[in-house]
């Protein structure tokens, strides 16, 4: 990055961090600038990487049928017109239907592999592995049963025990999730701090000729 880029990035970073002290106009201004830039970038990437090449390399060379999906996509903008806003539902319903078809076609295989993996043989290479396999099976089944409400827990005591075990299993999973979330978020902050303390500070010292 050039010196000017580093300074723009650093000042923007500090402006956004100023929110931690107190909500302030500088933070709001930079936040709004970021939203505008980000939204523009998404559109530009779609235009440059897909729409422009399609028009240039396919439609302009004779694949005129590809104009139809463009027109279908443009129909979504009729939602801003009071009289024909229902027309916007057409492309949305088709894309939602396609996505739903994906779920029904492609998601069963990974799901079934997860289910069948639960019923692997328990014996492992070591005693510890065997115990872990049994424990995994019991915990995962009890966690699934925790969400099973057809059999009443009040009437059947084993369901109550398994439900409690399942609840604790899920709580432990969420605890592990929290532990990893802490690391993940700290990583992001460290990235910014490293930029401020290494890139920006060294550039500042360089400008001040230290």
């Amino acid at each position, binding site marked *: 990055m050039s010196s000017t880029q580093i300074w723009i990035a650093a000042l923007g970073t500090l402006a956004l961090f100023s929110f931690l002290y107190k909500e302030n106009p500088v933070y709001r201004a930079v936040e709004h600038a970021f939203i505008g830039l980000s939204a523009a970038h998404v559109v530009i*990437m779609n235009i440059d990487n897909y729409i422009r090449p399609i028009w240039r*390399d396919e439609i302009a060379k004779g694949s005129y049928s590809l104009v139809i999906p463009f027109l279908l996509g443009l129909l979504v903008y009729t939602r801003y017109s009071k009289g024909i806003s229902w027309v916007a539902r057409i492309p949305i319903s088709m894309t939602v239907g396609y996505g739903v078809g*994906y779920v029904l076609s492609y998601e069963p295989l990974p799901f079934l592999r997860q289910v069948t993996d639960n019923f692997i043989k328990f014996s492992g290479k070591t005693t510890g592995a065997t115990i872990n396999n049994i424990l995994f099976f019991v915990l995962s089944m009890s966690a699934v049963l925790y969400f099973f409400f057809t059999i009443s827990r009040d009437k059947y005591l084993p369901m109550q025990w398994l439900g409690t075990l399942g609840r604790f299993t899920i709580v432990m999973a969420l605890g592990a999730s929290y532990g990893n*979330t802490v690391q*993940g*978020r700290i*990583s992001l902050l460290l990235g910014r701090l*490293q930029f401020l303390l290494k890139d920006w500070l060294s550039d500042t010292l360089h400008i001040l000729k230290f």
Partner: protein
Amino acid sequence: MWEKLQTLDRRVIYLFFVIALMIPLFKPMGLPIPIGEESQRFYDAFDKLAPGSVVLMSADYSPGSSAECNPQFEAVIKHAFRNNYKVMVFALWEQGAMLARDIAEQVSKSMNKTHGVDWIFLGYRPGGNIKIREMSNDLWGALLNIDGYDRPLNESPMMANIKKLYPPDIDAIVCFSSGSPGDGDYMAVVTDPSGIPLFTGQVAVQVPARVPLIRSGQLAGMIPGMGGAAEYENLTGFPGKAAGLMDAQSLAHIVILGFIVLGNIAFLAARKT
């Protein structure tokens, strides 16, 4: 006093937290980084691929996750180049393409790899999971016959025999993911039906949810967050940014645990009084 402690101004907490993070950046502690089993598993399985294997590296993350995923991407692409795999760099996320391209260009230059021969940048294409399906049937058509630099694919010798994102044309997929679309979609469309290995670099937040997939064999390996990236840098012997930040991670974790303990002590003491 205990009630006051419980309602401590959050800016005081932020200050302690930032100081804890900054100290190791100026004065590293040099703590040894033990290699976790997930990173070791990823390394061993990835290293086993034959030289010349075609590997798709998909950067499905944004700058918000780049602190974790960039070091992972860099470490893995260095490993791939060292083992002479043919690397295709792709992204289902708009921002991921730009981030991955910078890293790939930098690393390929330093390791003398030629674009079009040893690696290729395929860029970003919209469509998510449907794009993956399209690529698995007709890769060139899905990419509109151009690479990420707008050059025709037929100008790249390495793409001559790669017509589909499906075996035997490709040998492995590595997906660096911070959300959807990502590894789950590659798994559903390509790797689960075909059996080729799927590797993933994950943000730490998503690591616990991926553990069942490793257990079932649907994921051949996973690099967990920035810690995993640091471990992978050590495994491959290529120094990177992640390893230098683990000292700060350590101190920050201790500070947060300290806050949790202090908060609970204050809570219990206030309840007693």
